[in-house]
């Protein structure tokens, strides 16, 4: 399958149907994908109908693996797990992890998902895949054969390959260690609850969850997770505290520990990892509380690349399930009914409602990512003059190479910056608006999908996916060691966007709970002036 038009609904009617396309004259657009001409097809599909068995799934996995290998996908080994709908609900509630420490917020998401599911308002997630080695993909038992194979291709090969290939995941997460670490976290949280009471533990976790976006090293590779080392370190810390803690002399110890810090106070480097700073330097936290902070920080760090690669990750996975299932069809391994069924689901997943419709919930990362990746392939295979102008190094090169490069080296903002083509902008009818201080009653359209606007739209969209655009940047500017022990945070204001006063107040309250002394948050403009100050 090379060049089938997708059914995203926003595509333009194709002006010049390619004469090479083999479908009958009456159809201007294919409703059923036609097998690629000239490919040897199997006589019989591997299976028909919607029933499946473990045996059929295995056969399909083998078939997908053969195609994926031919197209050069690099994946971790895959473990599929068959689960029921309620197990899927459980999984969804703990951000997809099979093991997690207990917290009410997971219960909240469980209840709301369950409620929606029972009322038929929402469907269940089709797939969950975990960035581990071996990669674990979940297959829900109520899915039909076509859906199972779709999920296998999407999660088991698409996401899996992305996890293994993408530089952020390679750099920031250790796929083989996360489940063990979460197991450790769960039992540690449980022990703390037994020892110190659930209220205490919960309030620390609440604080940490609110600060989780600021518990990430954004540029430094984090140390390897290791449960053994973690336990050893913890034991040592607790033992030391037990052995040496004497309330009468506690102030001496504190002073002793603070001494090197006092030196560095002169030249304090602003720190962006707020949770790390709190874990190491909060004056009054108990050792076990520091440990909880550390756990949330580590988990947040693990999910950091996923936050940055929503479009790229989902786009790649969607592209690969689309490609792989079409390969299956071309080889005659699935029948027409199978194709019609999953294409229906696929169409739902990549649907992008226009901005003014009721169903609009922001840009659909599946739709955007899928369009970008599919256009990369199109540019490689059937470049137009426009493509040769915009993507001279891409046009006419072998597409698996190009896709692989795009999967490996980009996160959302850079992927868009690099690959969002004029055709995708036209297809999705993207346009850029400006919301300025001069007119608070209107948005102003600054660019649309035309020659003059392509670059602007592209840059703006890329900027929208920088994490700074939706997570305000906060750094620890100074922690004074004087009697007040106040913590000074700074928000670097970009283009005049201040913090929402209420959210700042709530979150500062949480910081204060951990820091135990006053916390001040300054908003600093680009010229270094202080624009606003929040105090606890």
């Amino acid at each position, binding site marked *: 399958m090379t060049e089938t038009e997708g059914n995203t609904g*926003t595509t333009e009617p194709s002006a010049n149907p390619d004469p090479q396309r083999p479908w009958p004259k009456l159809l201007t657009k294919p409703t059923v994908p036609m097998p690629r001409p000239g490919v040897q097809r199997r006589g019989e599909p591997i299976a028909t109908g919607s029933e499946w068995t*473990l045996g059929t799934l*295995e056969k399909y*996995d*083998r078939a997908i693996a053969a195609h994926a*290998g031919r197209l050069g*996908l690099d*994946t971790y*080994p895959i473990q599929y*797990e*068959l689960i*029921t709908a309620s197990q899927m609900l459980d999984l969804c*509630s*703990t951000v997809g992890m099979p093991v997690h420490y*207990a*917290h009410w917020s*997971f*219960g*909240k998401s*469980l209840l709301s998902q*369950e*409620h929606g599911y029972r009322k038929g308002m929402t469907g269940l997630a089709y797939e969950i895949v975990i960035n581990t080695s*071996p990669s674990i993909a979940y*297959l829900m038992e109520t899915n039909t054969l076509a859906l199972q194979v779709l999920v296998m291709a999407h999660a088991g090969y698409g996401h899996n390959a992305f996890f293994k290939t993408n530089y952020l995941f390679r750099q920031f997460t250790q796929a*083989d260690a996360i489940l063990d670490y979460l*197991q450790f976290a769960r039992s540690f949280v449980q022990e703390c609850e037994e020892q110190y009471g*659930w209220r205490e533990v*919960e309030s620390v976790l609440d604080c940490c969850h609110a600060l989780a*976006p600021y518990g990430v090293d954004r540029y430094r590779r984090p140390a390897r997770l290791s449960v053994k080392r973690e336990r050893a370190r913890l034991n040592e810390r607790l033992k030391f505290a037990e052995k040496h803690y004497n309330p009468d002399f506690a102030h001496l110890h504190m002073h002793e520990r603070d001494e090197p810090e006092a030196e560095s106070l002169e030249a304090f480097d602003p720190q962006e990892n707020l949770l790390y700073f709190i874990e190491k330097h909060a004056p009054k936290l108990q050792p076990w509380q520091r440990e909880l902070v550390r756990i949330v920080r580590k988990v947040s760090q693990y999910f950091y690349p996923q936050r940055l690669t929503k479009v790229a990750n989902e786009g790649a996975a969607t592209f690969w399930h689309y490609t792989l299932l079409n390969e299956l069809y071309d080889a005659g391994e699935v029948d027409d009914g199978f194709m019609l069924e999953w294409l229906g689901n696929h169409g739902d997943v990549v649907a992008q409602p*226009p*901005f*003014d*419709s009721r169903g609009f*919930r*922001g840009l659909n990362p599946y739709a955007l990512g899928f369009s970008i990746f599919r256009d990369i392939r199109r540019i490689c295979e059937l470049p137009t003059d426009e493509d040769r102008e915009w993507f001279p190094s891409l046009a006419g090169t072998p597409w698996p190479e190009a896709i692989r490069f795009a999967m490996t080296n980009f996160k959302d903002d850079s992927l868009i910056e690099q690959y969002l083509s004029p055709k995708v902008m036209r297809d999705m*009818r993207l*346009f850029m*608006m400006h*919301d300025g201080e001069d*007119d608070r009653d209107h*948005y102003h*359209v*600054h660019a*649309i999908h035309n020659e*003059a*606007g392509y670059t602007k*739209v592209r840059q*703006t*969209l890329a900027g*929208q996916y920088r994490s700074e*655009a939706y997570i305000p940047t906060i750094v620890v500017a100074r922690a004074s060691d004087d009697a007040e022990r106040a913590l000074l945070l700074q928000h670097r*204001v970009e283009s*005049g*966007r*201040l*913090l*929402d006063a209420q*959210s700042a107040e709530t*979150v500062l309250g*949480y910081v204060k709970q951990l820091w135990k002394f006053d916390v001040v948050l300054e908003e600093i403009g680009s010229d270094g002036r202080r624009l606003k100050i929040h105090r606890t």
Partner: protein
Amino acid sequence: MPRKPDRESTPYTDPQDASADSPIAGLLRIVDRRSDPPGRGAVNRERFIRRFKDDIKRAADEEFGKRSIKDVGRGGRISIPGRGLAEPRLTHDDDSGSRDFVLPGNREYLPGDSISRPRRGGEGEGDGDDAGSGGSTDSFGFALSREEFLALFFDDLELPNLERTRFGEMSMERMRRGGYSREGLASNLLPGMTVRMGIARRIALRGALLERIEELEGEVAQAGDPPPAELLEEIARLRARREHLPFLEDVDRRYRSRVPTAAPATRAVMLCLMDVSGSMDERKKDLAKRFFALLYLFLERKYGRVEVIFVRHTETAEEVDEERFFHDPQTGGTLVHPALELAYRIVQERYAGPDWNVYVAQASDGDCTGEDGRRSAAFLQQDLLPLLRYFAYIDIPSSSGWFNRASDLWQSYDVIEGPVFARRAVHDRGDIWPVFRELFARKQAA
């Protein structure tokens, strides 16, 4: 390997082999986890309920107020206010500074056009859909299970697991089908069975006659040439009898048989008696309702189906539906006796007989006149109690009253004795469950 290989694992390729010639590591295994114990999410669910217990309890109380007694035991949808549920994150203030954003689906706009800004709180921002930010929604709806609902309803007390035999287990005689009999009424005759017995009888007799005939024929053969005439005669007689066996005889008749057996009485009715005079305020009615609901739940667990009759009284008594029972305010004085009389009539007319288990629960603030109290107690003792499995009186004194002084009705009931009668005073919601347990545990001790 973080997880143990499972029973159903079916490795079909050696990953080492696969990875040797291609980068695709391929399938490791398919694990069937469907049979894993469910409820991993239960921990988090319970934590959520624990954290928002106050809100949830308030919502459950409201829900309780709206529900009929019979529906109290079911789980159901609960909606709690969204404040406090939000997991806060730092966000930008959209009313400050300037920003650019991209939206899809432009159909008409050209550069230079302007679109009026949506109101705050509306959708339509292009800022991506970063999950988990949640935001504060107006209310958060979810479903509680029956157990969770009851736990909240009874303020974290568990529903009783009282044994079936704990109180008032009464049995009655009931006729049950019990095989067949040779005598009976014509209407109970079983024709098929009777004919079958006839066939069996004929087969048996023909066999027996044939044996006898063969025996005689043997004797004839031994007896020599001129066979004894009496033997031949006998053989002929037996042959004739064998050929002419009657189709049916009296002994073949079979009737349905019914035998008396002891069976637990399975039908139950519960009469709720309540004083609805002006002095019974909403608080007291709510306590009464909780008690009635608890009794209903308990009886329902025991009997499966329970009929509920509501009798309210001021100076006069009347039977009403549940809605009016709890929510229709009445004014007037208080006379208990008419209510007991009405209950007596209802039981006599509709629920008489050994197969009805009749329970009466009376709730009152205990106001009555001395004369009325004496008559009521006497009537209860002599007429009503003999018909009942159990009579529970709960006394809900005014919260502002003298604490130590027993109410008038309470004092009047002092004269009543017997295992079927019980009474307790309830002051606030926390009392309901202990009182209930006391009431129904008492008989076991006795």
